[in-house]
């Protein structure tokens, strides 16, 4: 286990270094010049040079990369080019808001999708299975943007059940987040139900399940006690690999509902050429992905005693 952890830690460091290098090179090679973006129609040579110097963009590339690496090591990504805000605070605050947006529908979605998938698997091949397939495939085919626009218009504006947009922290948060949660749930539940149904159906045909049935176990007991635990690994993989994206929030929802999360921050930074923000979010996302992949591997051992880490 220790050897496994050390090896994965080494791999993680290499991955993060690779992502940092790639991010840095891509931004320098292909991204628009942030100084020009900031100065607009009145950029003259002296202003461009002064701002470039102020942002450290006149230093040699190697020196800039070293600075970027040291920022990653110290978890201090400096300040936004656009508004001078401290990025650690900006991203920290945004991450909590994004988690408030994404975690509740994620948890609810997981429970509902597994339950619905079990129910559908129970009725496999029947009318309920066919109806659910049509419903969920239809739901998946609709763009998330359509859900946002239609539900914001219909439920918030026309029916007045929810605020049109806005956000407040603390106990007031659910008042503003209920509609975004419903939309996230509506968007995510279809693909998950389809995936989990297929996983469960694969298990349904396994030998031990047939044995359980032969011993007289009810279909419901077979599904819950014998099928579900053995389908845990794909469900776990799907669930844990989604976790890093929860911190990144939802670009569309945060934008349409004026929720100050990471998703909205990324969209604004892209529009404004705020590269320190984009670089920080890219590297932090890579870190989160690496960490949660490692967590997935460790959870495999817990979920399936046959798995050995080496």
């Amino acid at each position: 286990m220790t050897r496994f952890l050390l090896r994965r830690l080494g791999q993680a460091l290499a991955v993060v270094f690779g992502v940092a290098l790639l991010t840095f090179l891509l931004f320098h090679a292909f991204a628009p010049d942030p100084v020009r973006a900031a100065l607009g129609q009145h950029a003259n040579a002296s202003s461009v040079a002064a701002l470039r110097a102020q942002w450290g963009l006149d230093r040699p590339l190697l020196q800039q990369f070293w600075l970027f690496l040291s920022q990653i090591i110290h978890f201090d990504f400096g300040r936004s080019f656009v508004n001078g805000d401290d990025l650690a605070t900006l991203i920290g605050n945004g991450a909590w808001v994004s988690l408030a947006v994404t975690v509740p529908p994620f948890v609810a979605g997981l429970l509902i999708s597994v339950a619905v998938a079990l129910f559908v698997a129970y009725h496999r091949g029947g009318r309920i299975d066919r109806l659910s397939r049509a419903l969920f495939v239809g739901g998946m085919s609709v763009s998330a943007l359509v859900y946002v626009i239609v539900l914001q218009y219909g439920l918030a504006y026309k029916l007045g059940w929810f605020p049109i947009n806005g956000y407040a922290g603390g106990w007031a948060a659910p008042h503003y987040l209920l509609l975004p949660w419903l939309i996230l749930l509506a968007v995510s539940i279809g693909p998950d139900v389809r995936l989990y149904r297929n996983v469960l159906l694969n298990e349904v045909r396994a030998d031990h399940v047939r044995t359980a049935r032969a011993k007289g176990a009810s279909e419901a007991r077979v599904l819950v006690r014998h099928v579900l635990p053995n389908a845990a690994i794909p469900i776990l993989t799907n669930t844990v690999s989604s976790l890093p994206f929860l911190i990144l929030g939802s670009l569309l929802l945060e934008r349409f509902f004026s929720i100050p999360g990471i998703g909205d921050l990324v969209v604004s930074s892209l529009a404004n050429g705020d590269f320190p923000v984009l670089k920080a979010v890219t590297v932090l996302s890579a870190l989160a992905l690496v960490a949660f992949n490692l967590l997935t591997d460790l959870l495999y051992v817990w979920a399936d005693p046959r798995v050995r880490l080496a």
Partner: protein
Amino acid sequence: MSHTHFRFDRRRLLAGTTGAALALGWPASQAQADGRILVIARSDPFKSMDPVRAFEDNSSLLQELAYSTLLTYAWLERPYRLEPDLLERLPERSADGLSYQFTLRRGVMFHDDACFPGGKGRELVADDVLFNLRRFADARLNQESWFLLEDMLVGLDEYRAATLKAPPEADLSGTAVAGLVKQDSHRFTLRLKRENTLFLYAFASPATSIVAPEAAKVDGERLATHPVGTGPYRLKDFERKGVIRWVRHAGYHRSYPAAGGAGDAEAGLLKAAGRRRPFVETLEMPLIEESQPRILKFLRGELDLVNLDRAAIDRMLRRENGRYQLLPEYTQRFTLYQSERLTAMYLWINQKDPLLGRNKALRQAIAHLLDVPGDIETVQRGAAQPLGSIVPLPIAGSERDTGARPAGYDPERAKALLAQAGFPEGRGLAELTVSCGFAAIEWRDRFDFHRARFAAAGVRLKSNFTDQPTFIKSVEASNFQLALYGWVADYPDAENFYQLLIGRNAAPGPNLASFSHPEYNRAYEAARLMAAGPERLVHLRRMNDIVRDEVPLVPLYNSLRVGLRQNWVRNHKYHLLISNAAPYLDLEGPPSRR
């Protein structure tokens, strides 16, 4: 964090108190003085509330609330006229035109803030203005708006050069600058390097707003989000991505204007004449970046003003005789406003391009192939006016004064010119590339629209869409053939637009076409500092004729701002040079309607 809007409840409560107040015989204005909230959405995040650190619309919108400038523009009068704001009267010009004396209004108070002894704001004095002028010139702080005073005041450019070399923390604010002369506590003189009547416009820009030196010295960085000025509103609380709340500055020094333009009295715009501003106690500015929620909140009465985009124009308006009208279902609830903006869009033609630069007939053919009215009708749903000259319509010296007319869409004339250019029916003419730095779908629609028009005459167009900085980089390096790019007025004078084509401004300067025409340059220099009048028009007309003949660019259109306000909003008149109308607005009507 709190973006809560429990304002309906508060307004119901207000309805009760207002009714009681009226029953007791209190004046309505007094009864309504407290508790009212004006809500105006921001559509983009701001960069900084520090005037010298950000020079863009989203920041100006806030800077205009917190700060005052030496001069401003009259709220109601058109054409736009400078008037004193922090000054007692307009600056007095010396006989040689090389110095101006400024006299500050007495009794102008800074907002109460912890940066002052006892937290109580003090009176504005001349030293504050001179401190701010040095701060404006500090190269460590100001990269965006320095052009407003660049190469104008004696010694200020040298001061800027010194700040560039100074360490970041060095305080140079005590350094003497020969062009900034204090006379007494409320008077100072600015000395110019050379005569320049346009320099006064700089003092109406939010970039030259006066910040409290105490606040800047305590923590200059904090000014980005904690403004301390003499403006009509004081910041109460703020969230960069949420709601920014302001409260009325009780000691604000300005009143509502007594003079207006034609029709203003009939429109009820002078009812508040002479009353101390601002009228509304609290101002909320939520950030709503997407159009749909902005419009929906407006429809529900949760916003007081809203600008309309293409989709909203399609849904809520119809056009009649070239003007927008509200659809009948909205006329009882909202008031429509529309105004030409101070922006002009052009198709630039690179004079350094080996093909286009040497072939005048080809450039003239291009001008006749641009169906600008069709573009406005089809792509912009009518939200623009075609331009006949380089100057936007609301500015003195535009085609309304000079009589300039667009080349006009004329495919037959274009075909004849193409033949004259050596490309009959477009034969032998290589595909022309149109560069564009705007990402919105409207620009793709525009390109497709014109490509079809050009193709009908045998001219093939291809597009080169990039992000804005990449676009600017390539056009400044003259690496383009045709480019779609506009100009936003820095001040309401035609000079700001005619300078776009003078030889010394050639790329990488704002003259993207690298047009160089000695006669144009002479006419420009002659007209530059001349007051508006027939003599100046002679020079402007000559420049228009040269542009129309040489075609370094084709003026395309002047965009319109189309928006709606709730019928309970009073004193609103769309102003092109004042970003934030809030300090002039009042709210009327029973709060239950709101």
